[in-house]
């Protein structure tokens, strides 16, 4: 791919230019000065202690590159910045016979893992090898810095691929091989944003060898973040708060970056799981599920089952399973989904972030009413789906809150919210209140019992009537399951299917699981994984925070006005923005698309990020997608915008605008017709068994 606007700059020159421009605007730069630590008072940055004295400041930005980790740890309250350096080699040569011109394009050969560009008429060529050499694992080390030498034997594969691609370069004379360590992060995305524990402590580091190309944009968003409190784009994927202290182990980082660095030039396929640094956080049922064929994915260090491979089925080897087409697990997930629809499945969902908020008086309710957009003043035992919004009305978090008692609430959020949500709550909770916020994620194992027969399983295990009359939807009750007492049973499944979530104190987890599986046998119970859950959820138009929802999407934009207490006269964060939006109308709308002429077996699958076309005009991108096994169609969720044809400005999107349009989803250059829906397909909610569908297996005893 040739990019005519491509350019080559010298990072040193750019840095110097920026420094001199900054100086002209009154910025003082202290050369040869080391930071000892950052001074913090009451969780707020107050200054910097250097080897040449103190400097007072309100904001501190840690952009110490590969030393950012150590600098973060030097604080009294450490700021954990998970990154690790790897040695990086590039080659410099003398000029070619006809020296390269400055307009020579930069060449990347991803298969050969190398890049080549002009350097003073010769070439500069480096790459990202398969076997990286992590360095500075034990921190800044003078010995290692001095020993940063050329390692030709290590560079040999890259040199081979360079000469394979351009054999004529053979005659070029070597100037030197430079060893210049680069920094990598656990997920190959850079790290920026404010520390969850220290206000005013910002980070911009871990650029994964793309610092120069990302520098401009990253600087812009960080500046906005510092000035306005939030950046103008959704950059959750880069937010420091996506990580916690749990990703800060040096061993973990050392192992993970060895997998991340080669990935830079690898083909990145959907639903790819890292292989290193795994099995850190696991549910007590991990071994049981693993023995039953579970395949795992990892979120925030937690192992979650994707699906369960039946004993008689073989999946492809890891490398062969890389695909953009129909994956090898298709039939496995299909049977799990079918079982959720017709019988009952159990999914271990222990990774969800779980907080408990209690108070001695009524403060808990007061505070939460201000922090959350939906009305939490519900009778004890009720569950409320609510957003945790920012001032712009966008979702900082999307969660379910159960009112356990008048003064205590149980909050369930997505797995990767553990750090972010905690920081947000801490930030907005009054300091001197006698409110107790506790992270109880580790205390409970969560089992999701999905399916029409979940009722039968639970009532048999608890000797309690579980029918909707006794246990209505979105209800929470502590009850006994098997021998275990005090199990929090909630009538919701995060999918729109009937069933229950069981929050089980971990010491009972194995017992309850065994009981559920034992009793469930006659109802056809089986294990299922997150892929089945995802298919069920998307088919029913359940948006998910982190995928479909982010800090820039509001409840009104995804049809969730009913989950907002706008008309109750209560103040909450984001209310003003929402009121204004309600008045003005929304500029984008979450829409569900059902692909019409897409051949699941032969066509490339939608994964996410596919462009959406309305009447031939680009209107947005998909945010998530899944195959709907009931609809027998692919379902995509995505935001539809209304760009003015003349100016490209965003205009109001109405339901009418959505409904009166012909839609196409572009998958890798091929457009597929799609039906747009603003509400889920109703037929999915009625479970009628047709007479001619009855099978012998349905006659099995109950």
């Amino acid at each position: 791919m040739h990019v005519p606007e491509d350019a080559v700059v010298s990072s040193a020159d750019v840095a110097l230019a920026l420094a001199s421009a900054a100086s002209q605007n009154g910025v003082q730069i202290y050369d040869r000065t080391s930071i000892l630590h950052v001074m913090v008072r009451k969780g707020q940055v107050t200054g910097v202690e250097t080897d040449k004295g103190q400097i007072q400041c309100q904001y501190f930005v840690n952009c110490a590159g590969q030393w950012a980790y150590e600098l973060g740890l030097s604080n009294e309250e450490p700021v954990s910045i998970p990154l690790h350096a790897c040695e990086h080699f590039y080659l410099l040569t003398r000029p070619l016979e006809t020296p390269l011109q400055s307009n020579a394009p930069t060449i990347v050969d991803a298969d050969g893992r190398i890049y080549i560009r002009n350097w003073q008429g010769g070439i500069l060529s480096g790459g990202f090898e398969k076997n990286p050499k992590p360095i500075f694992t034990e921190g800044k080390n003078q010995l290692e810095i001095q020993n940063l030498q050329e390692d030709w034997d290590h560079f040999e594969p890259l040199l081979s691929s360079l000469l394979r691609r351009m054999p004529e370069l053979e005659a070029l004379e070597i100037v030197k091989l430079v060893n210049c360590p680069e920094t990598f992060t656990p997920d190959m995305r850079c790290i920026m944003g404010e520390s969850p524990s220290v206000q005013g402590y910002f980070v911009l580091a871990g650029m994964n060898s793309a610092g120069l190309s990302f520098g401009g944009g990253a600087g812009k968003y960080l500046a906005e973040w510092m000035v306005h409190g939030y950046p103008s784009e959704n950059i959750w994927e880069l937010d420091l708060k996506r990580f916690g202290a749990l990703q800060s182990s040096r061993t973990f980082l050392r192992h993970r970056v060895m997998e991340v660095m080669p990935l830079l030039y690898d083909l990145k396929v959907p639903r790819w799981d890292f292989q290193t640094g795994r099995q850190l956080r696991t549910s007590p049922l991990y071994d049981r599920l693993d023995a039953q064929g579970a395949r795992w994915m990892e979120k925030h260090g937690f192992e979650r089952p994707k699906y369960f491979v039946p004993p008689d089925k073989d999946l492809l080897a890891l490398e062969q399973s890389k695909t953009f087409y129909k994956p090898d697990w298709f039939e496995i997930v299909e049977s799990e989904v079918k079982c959720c629809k017709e019988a009952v499945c159990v999914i271990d969902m222990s990774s969800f972030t779980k907080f408990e908020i209690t108070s001695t008086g009524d403060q808990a309710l007061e505070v939460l009413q201000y922090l959350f957009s939906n009305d939490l003043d519900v009778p004890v035992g009720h569950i409320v789906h609510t957003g945790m919004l920012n001032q712009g009305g966008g979702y900082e978090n999307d969660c379910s809150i159960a009112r356990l008692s008048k003064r205590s609430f149980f909050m369930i959020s997505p797995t990767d919210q553990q750090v972010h949500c905690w920081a947000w709550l801490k930030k907005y909770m009054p300091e001197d209140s006698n409110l107790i916020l506790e992270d109880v994620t580790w205390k409970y194992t969560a089992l999701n019992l999905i399916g029409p027969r979940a009722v039968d399983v639970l009532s048999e295990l608890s000797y309690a009537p579980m029918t909707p009359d006794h246990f209505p939807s979105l209800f929470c009750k502590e009850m006994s399951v098997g021998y275990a007492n005090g199990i929090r049973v909630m009538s919701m499944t995060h999918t729109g299917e009937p069933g229950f979530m069981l929050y089980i104190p971990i010491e009972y987890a194995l017992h309850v699981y065994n009981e559920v599986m034992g009793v469930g046998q006659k109802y056809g119970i089986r294990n299922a994984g997150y892929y089945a859950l995802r298919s069920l959820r998307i088919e029913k138009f359940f948006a998910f925070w982190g995928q479909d929802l982010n800090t820039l999407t509001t409840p009104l934009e995804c049809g969730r006005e009913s989950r907002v207490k706008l008309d109750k006269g209560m103040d909450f964060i984001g209310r003003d923005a929402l009121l204004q939006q309600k008045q003005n109308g929304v500029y984008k709308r979450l829409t569900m698309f059902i692909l019409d002429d897409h051949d699941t077996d032969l066509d490339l699958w939608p994964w996410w990020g596919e462009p959406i076309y309305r009447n031939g005009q680009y209107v947005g991108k998909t945010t998530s997608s899944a195959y709907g096994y009931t609809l027998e169609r692919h379902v995509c969720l995505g935001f539809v915008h209304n760009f003015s044809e003349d100016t490209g400005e965003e205009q109001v999107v109405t339901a009418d605008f959505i409904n009166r349009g012909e839609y196409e989803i572009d998958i890798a250059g091929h457009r597929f017709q799609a039906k747009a829906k603003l509400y889920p397909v109703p037929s999915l909610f009625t479970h009628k068994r047709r007479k001619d569908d009855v099978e012998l297996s349905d006659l099995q005893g109950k």
Partner: protein
Amino acid sequence: MDWAAAGRASAGVWAPAASGCGSVSPAGRMCVCPGPRRIGIPVRSSSLPLFSDAMPAPTQLFFPLIRNCELSRIYGTACYCHHKHLCCSPPYIPQSHLRYTPHPAYATFYRPKDSWWQYTQGRRYASTPQKFYLTPPQVNSILKANEYSFKVPEFDGKNVSSVLGFDSNQLPANAPIEDRRSAATCLQTRGMLLGVFDGHAGCACSQAVSERLFYYIAVSLLPHETLLEIENAVESGRALLPILQWHKHPNDYFSKEASKLYFNSLRTYWQELIDLNTGESTDIDVKEALINAFKRLDNDISLEAQVGDPNSFLNYLVLRVAFSGATACVAHVDGVDLHVANTGDSRAMLGVQEEDGSWSAVTLSNDHNAQNEREVERLKLEHPKNEAKSVVKQDRLLGLLMPFRAFGDVKFKWSIDLQKRVIESGPDQLNDNEYTKFIPPNYYTPPYLTAEPEVTYHRLRPQDKFLVLATDGLWETMHRQDVVRIVGEHLTGMHHQQPIAVGGYKVTLGQMHGLLTERRAKMSSVFEDQNAATHLIRHAVGNNEFGAVDHERLSKMLSLPEELARMYRDDITIIVVQFNSHVVGACQNQE
């Protein structure tokens, strides 16, 4: 890849290497000679029509050449020339191979049931082009299939054993492999036993020896009181003291069926040892114990075959054990005392590191074959003068057997009467077998063969870093000095090369690339193997003219069809025992 091989089996085959083993192919490369067979037996001319028409390549091409020769001059070990692809150069088959001239009337004896001749007629080689190229991982999986490593556990962080551990491995050429290996720690006495066993005429004898010999040795080493205690325990049905701790690869099996029989023979042995005890508690001499154990086991093998067993399976088994043969090379290491007991032509080689870091080989065993003048002398002295010419003929015992000492092989030990009697009363399978029925020529004054080992003692020094025990499959292909150097460099990590620096010199990318590729080729073979024995096998099979592992060659050698592998190489079994110099040094200072 096609199999259009130009075969030749003529008198010229056995000419010295310089004149080439057969033809020089159009590609200008030498073809390969097969390794020698350990035993030759006569083949009736009736078996020659087995070379019928419609024989697929390469046999088909092979056939006309054979027909051109006199039938009586068919050699058991035919020469294969695979002119394009298997271009093994002379260094691979060392001179020692060519010393051997088979008896004109004998064709190869392969194994009792499936001789190579039978293979060629009973099985059709795939005439479709064969895929020869193996990828490096495939090569590794073949080379590593039988590898085994044992580290002597450290107690309290202090390793008290002079043995650090050992690596072992074997690569089959025969199908099934006829080599065996054993390793065990003596539990009632100190010391560790390690041995390699090279079987011939089948694997029955080497298997039996690999299972039983160490028990005989351990029992021979036991003090009188321990023997009594064990015997009393057997008598009263109490739990027995364990004698050996085996260190076995999962593929190394023990026969379940014969276990009871073997135990009874062993028990008779220790009962005799108890009876022989004069009451004076003398120090047990390891050398004597080793010799007694070898002789006793061979004697038991012979007796069991003569007595037979009511169970027909066992009866056939003991006969097969006795009629096949095996050499043995066993090391006993106890502190600084190293004893090597050798019977046959496997070899024990000590790796010594000189002060300048270089490696030298010290041979701790003598080969018992025609190349050992003292062995030839011994044989001549043991038999009447008029047999002087026939007892060693064509460098073989009675013109047939390569090793001059071995277990089993009752054909070279029993009287003709006894052989006939046992075979006649034996099972039909035995009677139908050409080989067992055949009596060696010039067989006047048996026994011609003994299992008595030659025992070498060596007192370990700190510079003695390791011991290599290997069957002749290794020593035929590699010089002992190379063996010791390769293992030495592998174990000490000497292979770490100095890093390259450009440092002001004018170097082009192409020059650098060439240099790096060369260095990588050297390194890769070292890093691929954790196991020193595997590393040796890689060199033994894959070495090119320059002593570097050549993947292409390795891949070809390992992808030979089962039936042909034996023609290019022999079974290779290797144990590399590593010594703990600190412990050895400390032991020395104490004394």
